[in-house]
């Protein structure tokens, strides 16, 4: 983000390449010399103008060279409208649109795409350091290719997590959010174009480690799975309620460390169920494998549902085709005299 005026794209990268999907039309500009706080900025084609506290204007031209300019002749757009007394009076226009409508629409498209392919998609969320990636690696190994698996990884920087997943033999795509704190549906949509999504498989999306922001963003997944490790404190669900409310499964990880930490598993699950009644919970240890059978079985049920849904859709489409064909045949019969 530009530290002068707050503009600037998040440098989101998928597999190392910048994604051209940012909404802001501005480019980053260098900070000017300090001449008092910047009051407001007016955008014009060809450059950015800053008006400083001392009354002077300063412009940035794309390409680096800065120019000094007097106030007056170049003031256009917003400033002119304020002083133009012939303009229409103010009026209210109703919108009633969810702020996240655009993300939700992208998520819905992702969801339809995944459903068409019978893919069971999970969005893994947690604090950094809960053991998500290690758990994911062990899960892929234990899944042992009973169906195809693919992974989308999200981190601010590096491809370390995608590399670790690829070492298991599963395909993985790394999203780097740059300064961003969560994955959104657009990013996942881009990542999906880099993945060969096999029919009737499982897709794991490992979100950016963050117990706050990812909760608000639908990616098109079937479920959010929240991972809480026993080294984190059993009251996390109360302190970070939005994330636990958004989840359909809680994995309590690193259970092998329970003898060494003050963590009440029952209390943690109770707290989580206060903010998300009926939340399913599995206690597991990636190191020992405890609880993994239950976790794998849970994934299998979800994957079987996704496959069955796809089959049902195919059957429905076949019936529709058969119906249309018979109607076509009736219409094409010769006229009876």
């Amino acid at each position, binding site marked *: 983000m530009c530290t002068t005026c707050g503009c600037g794209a998040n440098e989101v990268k998928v597999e190392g390449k910048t994604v051209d999907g940012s909404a802001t039309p501005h480019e980053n500009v260098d900070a000017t010399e300090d001449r008092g706080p910047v009051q407001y900025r007016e955008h014009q084609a060809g450059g950015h103008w800053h008006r400083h506290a001392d009354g002077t204007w300063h412009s940035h031209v794309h390409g680096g060279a800065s120019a000094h300019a007097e106030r007056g002749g170049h003031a256009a757009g917003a400033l002119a409208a304020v002083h133009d007394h012939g303009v229409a009076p103010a009026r209210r226009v109703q919108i009633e649109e969810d702020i996240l*409508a655009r993300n939700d629409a992208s998520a819905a498209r992702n969801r339809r795409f995944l459903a068409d392919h019978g893919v069971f998609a999970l969005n893994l969320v947690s604090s950094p350091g809960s053991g998500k990636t290690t758990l994911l690696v062990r899960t892929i190994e234990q899944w042992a290719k009973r169906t195809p698996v693919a992974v989308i990884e999200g981190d601010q920087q590096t491809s370390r997590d995608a590399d670790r997943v690829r070492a298991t033999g599963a395909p993985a795509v790394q999203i780097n959010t740059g300064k961003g704190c969560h994955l959104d549906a657009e990013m996942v949509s881009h990542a999906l174009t880099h993945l060969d999504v096999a029919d009737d498989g499982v897709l794991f999306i490992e979100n950016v480690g963050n117990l706050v922001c990812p909760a608000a963003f639908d990616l098109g997944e079937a479920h959010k799975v929240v991972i809480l490790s026993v080294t984190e404190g059993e009251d996390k669900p109360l302190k970070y309620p939005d994330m636990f409310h958004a989840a359909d499964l809680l994995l309590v990880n690193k259970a092998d460390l329970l003898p060494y930490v003050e963590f009440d598993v029952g209390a943690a699950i109770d707290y989580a169920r206060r903010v998300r009644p009926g939340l399913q919970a599995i206690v597991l240890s990636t190191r020992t494998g405890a609880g993994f059978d239950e976790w794998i079985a849970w994934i299998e049920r979800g994957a079987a549902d996704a496959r069955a849904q796809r089959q049902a859709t195919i059957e429905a489409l076949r019936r529709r085709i058969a119906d249309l064909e018979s109607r076509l045949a009736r219409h094409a019969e010769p006229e009876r005299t």
Partner: protein
Amino acid sequence: MHEMALAESMLQIVESTARKNGAQRVLAVRLEIGALASVETEALRFCFDAVTRGSLADQARLEIEVTPGAAWCMACSDTVSIAARGAPCPRCGGYQLAVSQGEAMRVKDIEIK
């Protein structure tokens, strides 16, 4: 913080409507934010201010209406008000609650000229 992403989405919605209505400027944006929504309103104000600079909505007033939180309590078989997620039913103290109101984050309308 994700409030920047929310502010960018708000700007897209606002600019799109303003242009369709031939507006020169957006004077005000009215939001409905639920008490239980995943957003910090002061952070949102800050981000909205930053993201609208140089746009049609530069200097627009941000009016935020907060909708109170409500949930269906399964034990009481009634709708009760709740101040935050994780809060118990104010009547029976239980947690068998299904939130029915207060999660929305919506752009209600804009004032343009």
